[in-house]
């Protein structure tokens, strides 16, 4: 454990060194300039209570603010609309002091009552927010969610610049929840005015204002000159052009007509961008809070034998699978992705060792292997990955039949206790909503997810580790965070002893931008402002 800590500290030091180097090499940010960003699909909505896809996620972040946010390009929490916050000793009461003089785009000052209203709006079932569940730890959530009340009892406003939130149990992830888009502060009068169409007429406190939206064609974000952070944003205007085929968008980018190709690099062009030095300069690579994994249903024979699961872990050639997807990922050895706090760099995982796998399988009483089924989503490249897994399994005598189905059907099969022995998670894989390891446990490896219709497709339920997880989530004090991350890391590597998953790879993200764009690379693959942090990028 000690070795781990030293290594961690060392890597942090190295990381900060590199960051400093980058900061020096870059010129100082310049204000001004208009840029063009393209996307293929319509922007679904800019309502922060509803928008939940990787395209509108950072757009909403640029239009709205919440009490908390992250340092640009990192996963480090910082207060945003809150000036400061305090946490009570029992970890249940959060008191946020708001900034004075923060104005909505309509000119009115943001007050504590707006924060309360916004949280209640997201939780209110009439809003139909996909993020309502994140706030379940607030006192009074159940009453509001079941329509018994129209308020959140746990949220109070002692004065115009103070918000107090009481939780039913300590929750170390609560500050992350307050940084989610779903906790953005919205003005009631604008929501009332536009009703269900608020998402087309967003009014927030963010760095940009929506100036124009021609449905299906373009959106225009202009700088909010009243933004409370002086000098931010750097850009005067962002034109989002909608409806561009990703391949066409890249051709236009090469010609200088487009600054950021929002949809990234289509597979057909990927190798060119990866290998050609001219193109390489334009592509930024970043980590995603994502892991692709193979679940093994621990309640179904013969996968209920830990030796069989370990054998499968050793049988799969992850490097080959990464090659199948043109190297758009890195092989994984544990459930947590490397960018997540708690990731154990010293953990080696199971080696790729076919002979050992065969021996383990024989020890478990299956020297000739067995027949099983592998569920997979039916869009490329998932079936090809499943075939690679199938071949690897065949090498140790396990005959897996591939069941290639539509996404909804695979999710349903995984959520049914005796249906899917093996599921390849690709195309449905868990991408963390916020950079905290707890988001990677409960729903997909904890007992709470091992229910009918749940996401724990391995049906892994280890009560001892669940108790540890609860202990970790009760560690709310800032000075406990390092210990908490380590505890989480240990929970995940301990789970790997039982081998409910084969962690296969961590997908990476690729953003392509024109040569004239400035700002550190981290802004273009921001782990939170997915895909790009529009507030801090600038034009050279």
């Amino acid at each position: 454990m000690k070795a781990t800590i030293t290594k961690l500290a060392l890597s942090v030091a190295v990381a900060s060194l590199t960051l400093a180097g980058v900061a020096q090499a870059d010129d100082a940010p310049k204000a001004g300039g208009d840029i063009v960003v393209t996307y293929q699909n319509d922007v679904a909505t800019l309502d922060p209570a509803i928008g939940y896809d990787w395209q509108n996620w950072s757009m909403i972040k640029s239009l709205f603010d919440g009490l908390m946010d992250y340092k640009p390009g990192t996963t480090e929490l910082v207060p945003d609309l809150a000036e400061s916050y305090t946490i009570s000793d029992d970890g249940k009461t959060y008191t946020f002091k708001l900034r004075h003089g923060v104005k909505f785009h309509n000119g009115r000052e943001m007050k504590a009552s707006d924060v309360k209203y916004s949280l209640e709006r997201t939780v209110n079932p009439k809003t139909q927010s996909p993020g309502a569940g994140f706030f379940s730890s607030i006192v009074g959530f159940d009453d509001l969610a079941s329509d018994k009340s129209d308020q959140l009892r746990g949220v109070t406003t002692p004065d115009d610049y103070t918000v107090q939130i009481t939780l039913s149990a300590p929750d170390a992830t609560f500050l992350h929840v307050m940084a989610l888009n779903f906790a953005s502060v919205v003005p009631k009068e604008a929501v009332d005015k536009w009703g269900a169409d608020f998402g087309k007429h967003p009014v927030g406190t963010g760095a940009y204002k929506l100036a124009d939206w021609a449905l299906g064609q373009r959106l225009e974000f202009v700088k909010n000159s009243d933004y409370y952070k002086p000098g931010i944003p750097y850009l005067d205007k962002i034109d989002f052009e909608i409806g561009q085929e990703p391949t066409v968008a890249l051709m236009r980018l090469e010609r200088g007509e487009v600054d950021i190709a929002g949809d990234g690099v289509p597979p057909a062009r990927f190798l060119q961008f990866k290998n050609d030095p001219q193109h390489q300069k334009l592509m930024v690579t970043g980590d995603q809070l994502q892991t692709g994994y193979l679940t093994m249903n621990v309640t179904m024979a013969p996968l209920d034998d830990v030796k069989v699961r370990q054998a499968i872990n050793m049988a799969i050639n992850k490097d080959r699978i990464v090659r199948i997807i043109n190297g758009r990922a890195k092989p994984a050895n544990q459930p947590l992705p490397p960018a997540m706090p708690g990731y154990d760099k010293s953990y080696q995982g199971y080696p790729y060792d076919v002979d050992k796998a065969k021996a383990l399988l024989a020890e478990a009483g299956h020297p000739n292997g067995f027949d099983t089924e592998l569920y997979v989503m039916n869009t490329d490249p998932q079936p090809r990955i499943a075939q690679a897994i199938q071949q690897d399994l065949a090498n140790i005598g396990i005959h897996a039949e591939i069941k290639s189905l539509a996404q909804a059907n695979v999710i349903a099969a995984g959520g049914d206790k005796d249906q899917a022995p093996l599921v390849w998670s690709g195309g449905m894989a868990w991408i963390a909503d916020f950079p905290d390891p707890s988001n990677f446990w409960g729903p997909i490896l904890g007992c709470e997810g091992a229910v009918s219709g749940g996401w724990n497709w391995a049906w892994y339920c280890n009560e001892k580790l669940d108790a540890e997880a609860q202990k970790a989530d009760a560690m709310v004090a800032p000075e406990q965070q390092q210990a908490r991350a380590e505890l989480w890391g240990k929970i995940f590597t301990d789970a790997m002893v039982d081998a409910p998953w084969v962690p296969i790879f961590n997908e990476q993200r690729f953003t392509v931008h024109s040569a004239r764009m400035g700002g550190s690379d981290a802004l273009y693959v921001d782990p939170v402002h997915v895909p790009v942090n529009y507030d801090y990028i600038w034009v050279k």
Partner: protein
Amino acid sequence: MIWFITKRIAYAMLILLGVSFITYLLLYLIPADPARQIAGRSATAEVVANIRHQLGLDLPFYQQYLRYLGNLLQGDLGRSYVQRSEVAALIGSRLGATLQLMAAGIACELVIGIALGMLAALKRDSAIDRLLMAFSFIGVSSPHFIAAMLLLYVFAVKLAWFPMGGYGGVSHLLLPAITLGLLGSGWYSRMVRSSMIEVLHQDFIRTARAKGLTRARVILRHVLPNAITPVIPMIGIDIGIFMGGLVVVESVFGWPGIGQLAWQAIQQVDIPVIVGVTTVSAVAIIVGNLLADLIIPFIDPRIDIRKS
């Protein structure tokens, strides 16, 4: 005349009812749960049930369908599950662009189709004829996606004659319209060719030549008007096929029309938008056919709709 139109409109209504029923049923049967999709992964079972109830998805199929029809009669196409805005507004904002591209695309089809058909008929059985007919065959059978990409690459990227996709003035419109025209012209050129060959053999053509008219005048004044009649109803039928091509061509060229909307909605399983676009397309096809039937008597007085 009035009777004919009334009858056609009554048929049209029945067809629309059938189309909406089949679309609605198909989408009801696909294994996607819109309530779960809206609620997100963090949702509890109660939240999902609550949303299902609000959308009326917990009702039996016939009630859902009747509800949809009732709203449709009032011009309400519902709200998109993904975008949460009115389907009518989404379609309305894209209708203009689609009509523009449709008009330009069909005009290109006609110009290219008729010109090539005439040329092939006049040079019948020559190398040119065979080449043109082979071309028309390739045109109608080539996949729109590949062809559109190819044209975009050659004319917009390599030669830079046109802008690379997007919405705008005539320069933006031309390339997608020509793509649609080239790919769809095969139907027309083959039709014009065969009907022209037929007309060329008729007695009155020989008479016209015999009375000393020039070859050009014979073709333009006597052959073409007679040979072109079957093209008109063909346009009506073609609108249906054309819509299919529109979906792909709009997506490739980034043309903000209904086809692109349909393409996105299908990928996101946005059922109200899919049903809405299907209904609007069905209306377009029916109206197109009706118009074609009504216009024909003006072009060819021998056709009398009162007798049909």
